[in-house]
């Protein structure tokens, strides 16, 4: 049931539903006041539940303003816990083989839900900064010069900020395997894919497996 304010057609449908619902309420009240009141409560509850469960329209795709020149390729790397992961490193190295590739690494300052809502972000930021430093060092050790920043705690927002300032031609996102992702990582790859018109590569890194290997 679409919100009756979104369009005239939705408002019209809402009118028809209201007629039906109130016909029911009046009939129930004719039997007894209590029954009428209960009918009203139940119908209202159903309406609210249906309204809350519907999904809104999908967000539009943004055209990314690509800031590199015609010969340069800009790659934005979004790395959560997994910056030192081998898969990610090999993906980046492959991209670096073509000349004139500039890399920017963003480490979202991922945080637990409680700490996000209590604005306790300093430890998360420090941890993200450490991850970033390690990554940049790893990349430098294989000859890739990259710039980097600690991003917002929400990976989507961090990507948005980096897209604005860096203007990439492509995005590489690395995440944990689905079972162990942070509460904000869920669905981030799909969201980024649908939101931006540049190619998005998804790398899944399982640090536990790597540590054992």
């Amino acid at each position, binding site marked *: 049931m679409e919100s009756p304010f979104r369009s005239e057609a939705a408002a019209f449908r809402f009118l028809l539903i209201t007629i039906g619902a109130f016909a029911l309420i009046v009939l129930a009240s004719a039997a007894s006041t209590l029954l009428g009141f209960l009918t009203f409560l139940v119908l209202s509850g159903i309406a609210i539940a249906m309204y809350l469960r519907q999904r809104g329209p999908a967000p539009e795709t943004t055209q990314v303003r690509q800031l590199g*020149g015609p010969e340069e390729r800009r790659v934005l790397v979004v790395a959560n816990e997994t910056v030192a992961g081998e898969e990610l490193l090999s993906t980046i190295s492959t991209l670096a083989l073509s000349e004139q590739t500039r890399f920017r690494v963003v480490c979202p300052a991922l945080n637990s839900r409680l700490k996000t809502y209590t604005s306790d972000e300093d430890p998360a930021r420090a941890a993200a900064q450490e991850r970033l430093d390690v990554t940049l060092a790893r990349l430098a050790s294989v000859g890739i010069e990259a710039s980097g920043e600690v991003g*917002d705690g929400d990976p989507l927002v961090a990507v*948005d900020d980096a897209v*604005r300032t860096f203007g990439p031609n492509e995005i590489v996102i690395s995440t944990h395997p689905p079972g162990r992702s942070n509460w904000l990582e869920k669905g981030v790859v799909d969201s980024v894919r649908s939101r931006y018109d540049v190619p998005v590569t998804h790398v899944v890194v399982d640090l536990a497996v790597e540590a054992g290997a």
Partner: protein
Amino acid sequence: MTATHPSPDVQQYPAHFEPPHGSTWRTFFGPGLVRGAWMTVAGFLIGMLLVLALRWWWGWEPLWNTEVILVVGGMVLAPIGFLAGIGSFDYWLHYISGRPTRPEDHSGHGAKTWKDYFRVNTDHKVIGIQYLVTTFAFFTIGGLMAMFFRAELAQPGLQFVDSQTFNGLVSVHATLMIFLFIIPAFAGLANFAVPLMLGAPDMAFPRLNALSFWLLPIAGLMFVASFLAPGGAFGAGWTGYAPLAEGQPLGQTFFNMGVQWAGASSIMTALNFLVTIITMRAPGMTFWRMPLLVWANFTTSLLVVLATPFIAGSQFFVMFDRVMHTSFFVPEGGGYVLGYQHIFWFYSHPAVYIMMLPGFGIVSEVISSMSRKPIFGYRLMALSLLGILVLGFSVWAHHMFVAGMADWLRVPMMITTLLIAIPTGIKVFSWIATLWRGRIHLTTPMLFALGFVTMFVIGGLSGIYLGSVPIDIAASDTYFIVAHIHYVLFGGSVFTIYAGVYYWFPKMTGRMYSETLGKWHFWMTFLSFNATFFPMHYVGLRGMPRRVFDYDEAFGNMNLFISIASFVLGASFVLFVYNVITSWQRGPVAEANPWRARTLEWQVSSPPPIFNFDEIPQVVGGPYEYGVPGARHAILTPTKEAQKEAEEVHA
């Protein structure tokens, strides 16, 4: 539609549209105060004739009914005539007629001379200043009334006025302060600051914004004009309870209608804020990156839109009972008298949050920038605003503990009332934590913000006492309530309004106020305010009732002290007015960002360019990242920055 896009529905006139008439014609028939004046008279006459015609046709006796004619002619059609005359409906009337709409020539936007402030102006910055000047004018009137009745109260017995006039002074004082000062002054400050903070070129509906402002002087005039009505000003308090209000002389109707106009102004402004905040934020400004002033106005606007219609309803019912002999609150006809209080307070309790939440936002801005620290617990500060919004609707009956309502309602209302202390406490502790180890600059706005925190805590504490039913039973309708009200409304709201005016004064006027005068103003206000209102806690608990013109001899000395202190408080306001006027005229020119603050309004010139920004900024971080290396709130000129980036590549 925004000021930017002409409607695609319509064909356009050519770009340079010359008005077809000379300047004399335009003075009398073009939009402006002259046309406003005669159309006001015309409106009244049309209303009067309409009433007379209908009463003659229906054969109602007597033909001439002053109250009905005054309501229809004087309080509905005359104001509409005024609004039409000054031109607030011109664009819409043109649109309705189906003629091609004029392209936006922006002639109604921005102010180059002082005259532009007396027109219908669509620039939110101009409207903000119009609001502030108008509201402070009514603050002056309401304050003078207060000093007048404080003079009366300095000694027991009646010295200067009669009882009806005294009641009128007290009622009009409160009405003006609430509806014509606190609520719209916050609207004015927000009008100026919020679009700039959002990175928007103006509000979502600039013409509606202009109309909202012009409704306000109409309401104020109605309240003040009630003194001229036969029988005197309305004397039933700003709360206007039935059945007293229904038996009052003609002046009471001025209250009923004035509230409607003020309420309409408030609702339209709130609607505008909500649409602006939801749909016009700069790219990258998520809800969690909005400055807290924006959050505060968002929450306040929700409160206004949802709650204000209830006071409109309550006043409609009283007016209908008075003028059309209905029985909403007349027991003999089957009416339910207590219903007035329920309906009235269902708005008027959220109203006190409407009068405080924007102040919370201002204080967050001031404390953060003057301590050079991010706001502590930003998310919970935002969520606590929403918490106050929700809880605020559940406590109205704490104003009715002694009204004779159903007993079972009292304890639940007590519990919800005490619960509101939680989100409010979160805010107070967060402000303190923001100050903690900050580099504090005790400028005038900061002094008022700090003064607010302490005074509001005192007012909040007396509120906690009053939330408890047994204490309220003893303290209700005594001066303890008056003390509580003024600690939260003066020590609370007014202090934050002062803080906001001083804080944004350089941005609004391009001039810096005198810091010395500002500090004198603060200390004189702070000390005389406490001297005036703190003793009221004591006399109230000793048994002095409120809204009385005479009292027991035992309270005489305390009342004399309070009255003298109130005169000093009145005098302190003169310092403020002097500071504002002289600084505006010849204060030192202010830079763009004298406070080194980080929100967007400080990143443009003082005063801002006519359309705020050349390019909409792009937000890439939070607004309070003081001391965080490399943090930016926004990219001010994205296109230039992008060009620079591209050039760097080739370099």
